[in-house]
């Protein structure tokens, strides 16, 4: 009976460890991908706004 309880406790420990590892993975992913997206959001990205009215684009730049 005590063995059963120990086994149970061990299983829950492992489950917790797995969850923690998974949570860390999720956090790492969310951290890095949200940074990428934040950068993308910073771009003006309005290049399609008025191309239909024939707005000119300068030819030389970096």
């Amino acid at each position: 009976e005590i063995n059963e309880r120990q086994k149970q406790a061990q299983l829950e420990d492992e489950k917790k460890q797995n969850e923690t590892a998974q949570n860390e993975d999720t956090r790492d992913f969310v951290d890095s991908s949200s940074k990428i997206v934040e950068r993308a959001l910073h771009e003006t990205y309005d290049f399609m706004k008025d191309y239909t009215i024939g707005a000119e684009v300068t030819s030389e730049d970096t």
Partner: protein
Amino acid sequence: MAITQQSDVDETLKRLAGRKGVEGVVILNSDGLAIRSTIEAELTKKYASHVHQLVSHSKDAISGIDSENELTFLRVRTKKHELMIAPDKEYLMIVVQNFHEN
């Protein structure tokens, strides 16, 4: 959309979702299931299934053109908004951007 005890993840997502022009953020796992979402359930499901498949097609296209190349980021511009998609082995982030408000 199970919310676990990862308050930092949820805070990051909340902050991102609160940015000007951002309509919503969805995180998918590698099975294409939404594990986080700031948008309503029905629409989340649609994004999940269609974007998961689109990313898989995009990966195939890129490696089909050059087997040594790899997809890193996808921006899908539509009449109504823009989807920014950050894929990874384990997860995938979808950000719906409403550029008209930007």
